[in-house]
């Protein structure tokens, strides 16, 4: 159950609805990067790049790239009017002070309490946390975009994470190829189901307990 292009775009499109006019937003690498493509023109957002830019714009046209104007993933970007450059300490000052309205990240595992694991698979893949700990711990709203299940078909949404955590009780919203779930104080609330899946499919592929919203929307 890999996430194909269509599915990735659908996840990104759904995530874009969370972004409102005037917000400061940080997008992670992978599916989160695609979210920018689905923000309506009338919604003005300042995108934050943790290497040291506030106000990044779309990718430049081929041939127009500036090697010294890149996002945190190392890919060329452009600027929006009102953008600024600063060093990485200031970039993280903005994050720790809580100026980020939304951060959108990928994940390996998320727990029903909102614990996030996305930086290490001990002994196998140890990329490091980069800026994920600050982003997950300090952004006002943390949205995770990911595959609902892993390559072995096992749920990535768990009662408890098995991998070392990036941040505890940090995630607010989980958007997968199957569903949209909100982390609430009572547990994980299933709000929307992505077509062609059913509520039963989602429950079956989710290890964590799900609370059904009064009306689960079909997307």
């Amino acid at each position: 159950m890999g996430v194909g292009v269509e599915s990735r775009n659908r996840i990104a499109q759904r995530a874009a609805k969370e972004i409102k006019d005037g917000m400061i937003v940080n997008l992670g690498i992978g599916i989160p990067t695609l979210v920018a493509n689905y923000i309506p023109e009338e919604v003005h957002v300042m995108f934050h790049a943790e290497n040291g830019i506030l106000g990044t714009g779309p990718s430049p046209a081929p041939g127009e790239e500036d090697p010294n104007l890149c996002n945190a993933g190392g890919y060329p970007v452009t600027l929006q009017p009102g953008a600024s450059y600063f060093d990485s300490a200031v970039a993280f000052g903005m994050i720790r002070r809580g100026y980020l309205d939304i951060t959108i990240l990928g994940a390996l595992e998320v727990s029903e309490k909102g614990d996030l694991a996305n930086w290490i698979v001990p002994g196998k893949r140890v990329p490091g946390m980069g800026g994920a700990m600050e982003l997950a711990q300090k952004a006002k709203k943390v949205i995770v975009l990911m595959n609902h299940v892993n390559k072995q078909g096992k749920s990535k949404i768990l009662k408890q994470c098995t991998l070392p955590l990036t941040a505890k009780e940090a995630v607010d919203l989980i958007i997968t190829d199957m569903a949209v779930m909100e982390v609430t104080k009572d547990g994980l609330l299933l709000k929307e189901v992505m077509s062609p899946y059913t509520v039963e499919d989602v429950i079956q592929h989710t290890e964590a307990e799900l609370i059904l919203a009064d009306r689960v929307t079909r997307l």
Partner: protein
Amino acid sequence: MQTGAKKRNKLATLEEALTHIHDGTTLMFGGFGGVGNPPTLVEGILQKGVKDLTLIGNDAGFPDIGIGRLVSRERAKKLIASHIGSNPVAGKLMTEGKLEVEFSPQGTLAERIRAGGVGLGGILVDVGIGTIAEEGKEKISIGGKEYLVEPALTAEVAIVYARKADPFGNLVYDKSARNFNPLVAMAGAFTIAEADEIVPLGELDPECIVTPGVFVDMVIQSKGVNWKWVWE
């Protein structure tokens, strides 16, 4: 001891710069994902054949880009960074026990370097509490809130990339190539800046200088990037 006049002329050659970097040197570098790594100094260090370096900086670059070239050619015995995911060779060397890697959350790493650069002993931060990042770290409580004590970082030599420099070592950077460079520039016991353009004293607008020259010991002319970017 240098005279005042001499202190105002820090221009040097790459060869002179390299006499400060040896086997086992603790070397801090500016840059983020290769962007803003000083290309000429990295190439010079490679050519000199220096090994057993302890590298301190944001990430391990890419295998053939920036500081990553030193890492993937096994010139470092230790790396203190926040991320090595873009350089699979670094991960492989770490798994094989050929490279010791110490991870620090990115913002914490930036502040540890800044703290070292401005003469502080460390910082207090709550990032990483409740994760393995807090293991082995002292915790203190201030105003009823718990913080980790994160020690400052300094290095024997710091290497940075700047857009422009003057002979005193005043530096201005270039867009997102600024990143860790101004922090690293302050944290070296000996700081070498590589600049695209060296301008006469007085030409840089004092209002726009990001790194005051007092932090910089040597300025060399950059020969530009000699690698292909991932997006090219």
